[in-house]
């Protein structure tokens, strides 16, 4: 990981903790317990008192899921342009500039290769801090490349989704990224290369309606909000309140939309078990050196 990323992480966590007097303590949104930040870091931002899953920074999922020193970032330079000359209250290029400065990244997804408990995998993690993790041409291209690489190198693919959905500033270009990523997943599926989707809080819109729901298995983190339409839009449509827990990962599990809700600290072990079941005695994700 570059110094740039680490610096950016610092900036970002400062920005996030605006309401906390000194950065050492954080209040659990689940139970209200005041949590020591160092302790939270160690527990991957899961509340020690109630098990509430606080947001975990995108790059930390790489540390959480992959073996130490196995990560090799790919396509880091792929970046958004402004194909429509889009402007609302601000110009799209200005929004991009701010997002790049805040995150130290070129777009809203990190992609690369690594090993998960010894198994070679291709991993993408969406970064909500970059324009709400929205799906634009750059993300579509990076995910498509990562999945094509997984297909040709026969490595399992994992995508951690956390996104408000499509990137409106790229309109139809953005919409077509749903088709683009799904088209590559069709190939992966035919070739028997596993794809696991993990939805963390929140996962919505065009991301849910494409790769995030197309895993051989779809997993969710406890309490994650996952859906197609956002709660506000649904409320407006039906003209009433939403049922308790609507669109939570547990709700989706009950309705048959997720295979499992997995506690964050058990994710790596669970994924390892699943991938071994998929890959053992097959020519996929064969343990060995990552770089060929």
């Amino acid at each position, binding site marked *: 990981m570059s110094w740039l990323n680490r610096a950016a992480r610092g900036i970002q966590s400062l920005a996030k903790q605006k309401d906390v007097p000194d950065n050492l303590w954080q209040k659990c949104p689940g139970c209200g317990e005041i949590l020591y930040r160092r302790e939270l870091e160690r527990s991957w931002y899961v509340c020690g008192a109630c098990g509430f899953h606080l947001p975990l920074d995108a790059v930390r999922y790489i540390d959480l899921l992959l073996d130490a020193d196995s990560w090799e970032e790919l396509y880091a330079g792929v970046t958004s342009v402004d194909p429509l000359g889009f402007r609302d209250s601000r110009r799209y290029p200005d929004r991009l500039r701010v997002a790049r400065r805040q995150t130290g990244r070129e777009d809203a997804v990190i992609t690369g290769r690594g090993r998960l408990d010894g198994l070679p995998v291709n991993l993408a993690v969406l970064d909500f801090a970059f324009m709400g993790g929205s799906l634009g*041409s750059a993300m579509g291209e990076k995910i498509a490349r990562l999945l094509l690489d997984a297909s040709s190198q026969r490595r399992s693919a994992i995508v951690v989704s956390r996104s408000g959905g499509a990137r409106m500033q790229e*309109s*139809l*270009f953005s919409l*077509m990224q*749903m088709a683009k990523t799904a*088209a590559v997943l069709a190939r992966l599926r035919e070739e028997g290369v596993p794809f696991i989707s993990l939805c963390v809080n929140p996962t919505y819109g065009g991301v849910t309606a494409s790769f995030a729901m197309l895993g051989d298995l779809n997993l969710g983190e406890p309490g994650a909000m996952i859906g197609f*339409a956002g709660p506000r839009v649904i409320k407006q449509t*039906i003209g009433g309140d*939403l049922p308790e827990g609507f669109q939570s990962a547990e709700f989706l599990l009950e309705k048959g939309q997720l295979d499992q809700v997995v506690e964050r600290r058990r994710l790596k072990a669970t994924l390892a078990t699943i991938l071994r079941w998929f890959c053992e005695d097959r020519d996929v994700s064969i343990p060995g050196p990552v770089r060929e």
Partner: protein
Amino acid sequence: MPETTKGPWLDFERPIVELEERIRTLEASAAVGGVDVADEVAHLRRKAVRLSDDIFSKLEPWQRVQLARHGRRPTTLDLIERIFTQFVPLHGDRQFRDDPAIVGGLARLEGRPVLVLGHQKGRDTRSNVQRNFGMAHPEGYRKALRLMTLAERFERPIITFIDTPGAYPGLGAEERGQAEAIAHNLRAMAALRVPTVAVVTGEGGSGGALALGVADRIYMLENAVYSVISPEGCAAILWRDAAKAPDAAKAMRLTAADAFRHTLIDGIVGEPVGGAHRDHAAAALAVKAQLLDALAELVALDQKTLRERRLAKYLAMGEWTERR
């Protein structure tokens, strides 16, 4: 002039409609009084065409949105009736229910067996409630998928008509996996072993439109629109004011001309003067000609080539750069 259709006219087309009304009145009075009005009628008709050309040559994106949503615009069933020589409607997803917002069935295009399906809007309040304004639930997309795999099994080309404000955002839709239903269609359509042609005939609203829109050839009617979110939705989020929809429509570049310029679609189907809603038969004929052209090319390709080209087509979609 379509006589069978109902619904109000748009403000900007009212001058044309009023002129045509004058022509009709003049002809009627001439028929009764025996006066020769041929010259005057011919003059007014020329004027009507000029007026129409003038208005339609400088439409704002928002006016296209209004045309795409026009109450008189030909629906999927209107087009099916006029394009195909045979239509056997099919129903149900075999899991939950039949979704009236999506219609489809076995059809013949100039004798060739094809499968046709599309979003179905209503024509008035009652039929729109029945059709849910063309907004499908998951079972609608799953019905569409069932029909498409049926066509694949029997090696028939697939034609889809897209006309929807979007996938329905409701409780049941979410519970039954709206996102999964759409996503599943995208992946399945990308892998179909038969030729597929999609035509955006009216509103191409977001994921709900795309769920029928992954195809070898994608066309848009001249006044159809296609965007990632409705102009109202975009305006509500980015402008924090749904009334700014005309601004959002402009910013999103949602017209057929825009989509074609960005090479996200393969062609534009021209509409009759004054828009598709003014002459359903002419609009249908234009769509039919485009379908025949596209299919003639596509049926000549073997499965492998067809699927490889489809994947390549989608991989090429997107605008980005790469910093070293």
